């Protein structure tokens, strides 16, 4: 289990301006013997559709419980998730306008 860390990343992404922010929450699991178990320490990329292409907008790392969180992201963007080389869901989602502390819950992903 990773020791507690802080990762600072600067991305060269354009933002459209100050808008309401949404917190996204999701979980990655794996099927072990017919039972789903959380998958920790796994990178989840938030892929955003922008300028007619998919771009890795941000990433998060799952905790011990398999959950990952993207906080304070602007609503309206079309996105999908990239986990271990696979894209989810088949039809992309949109970041909704859900004010914190509520979360926009994302579909559970099984690797």
């Amino acid at each position, binding site marked *: 289990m990773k020791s507690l860390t802080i*990762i600072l990343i600067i991305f060269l992404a354009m933002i459209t301006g*100050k808008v309401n922010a949404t917190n996204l929450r999701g*979980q990655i699991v794996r099927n072990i013997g017919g039972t789903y178990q959380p998958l920790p320490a796994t990178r989840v990329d938030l892929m955003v559709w922008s300028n007619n292409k998919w771009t890795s907008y941000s990433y998060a790392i799952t905790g011990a419980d398999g959950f990952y969180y993207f906080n304070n992201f602007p609503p309206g963007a079309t996105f999908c998730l990239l986990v271990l080389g696979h894209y989810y869901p088949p039809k992309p989602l949109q970041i909704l306008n859900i004010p914190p502390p509520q979360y926009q819950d994302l579909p559970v992903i099984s690797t």
Partner: protein
Amino acid sequence: MEYDNLDALYKILCLALILLVPLAPAWGLYKIAPTDKFLAKGNFSGFRINATGSAGIYIVLFAAIYSQTKPILAEIDTTRALTTQISQLQKKLPWTIKYNLKLMDTDRLHEIDQNEYARYVQVDSILCVPRALNLSSDFKTVQFYMDNQNVTDMGDTLKSQVLLNGYGTTSLIIAKNSTSVDAKSRTITFSPTIYKVTPRASQLKELNSHEISVLKINAGNTKPPVMAAQ
């Protein structure tokens, strides 16, 4: 340091001195001994001079001062060229990015204890691009440098993120014209209040009891979804 362009004023001042300074002794001679004979005769800058009295004094002094102002004016131009170079170089200096972290506790109302910061913010574990260079003694401020080109390429809005175990990935956005961006000291300060995240505790149970569905891995999802061009 900023250099104000007062070169034009300096040059005007020099020219004024050339014209006005010789007036004082010329006027003095005119007042004291108006009939004294003083002759100035010769060539000056292509002009043939033949003057007497206080006018002669004025022309002699004017010529003497004029010969000294040329180097001064040249020095002003050289200094301006150097200060312009310095200004250009200063605009390319890297920026200091500073994070003043405020981590909130589970109740979302209170900040975590001071001694808790060291648990979450550890200098040996800081990974970033570029690498963090400085962590304050209270583990609440993280500081590193970023190239001027990277800041320029970000456009009007600066976006960065903090990823903290127990707090998720938090997006931080500020406009370049906000007070958090100090172009003079080339420092950008983020002061995020970051909240602990809360999982859906029952989700795994719901999943294993088939109350909710799951997206499964398959051979077909190795490429991103196909989108219509906009």
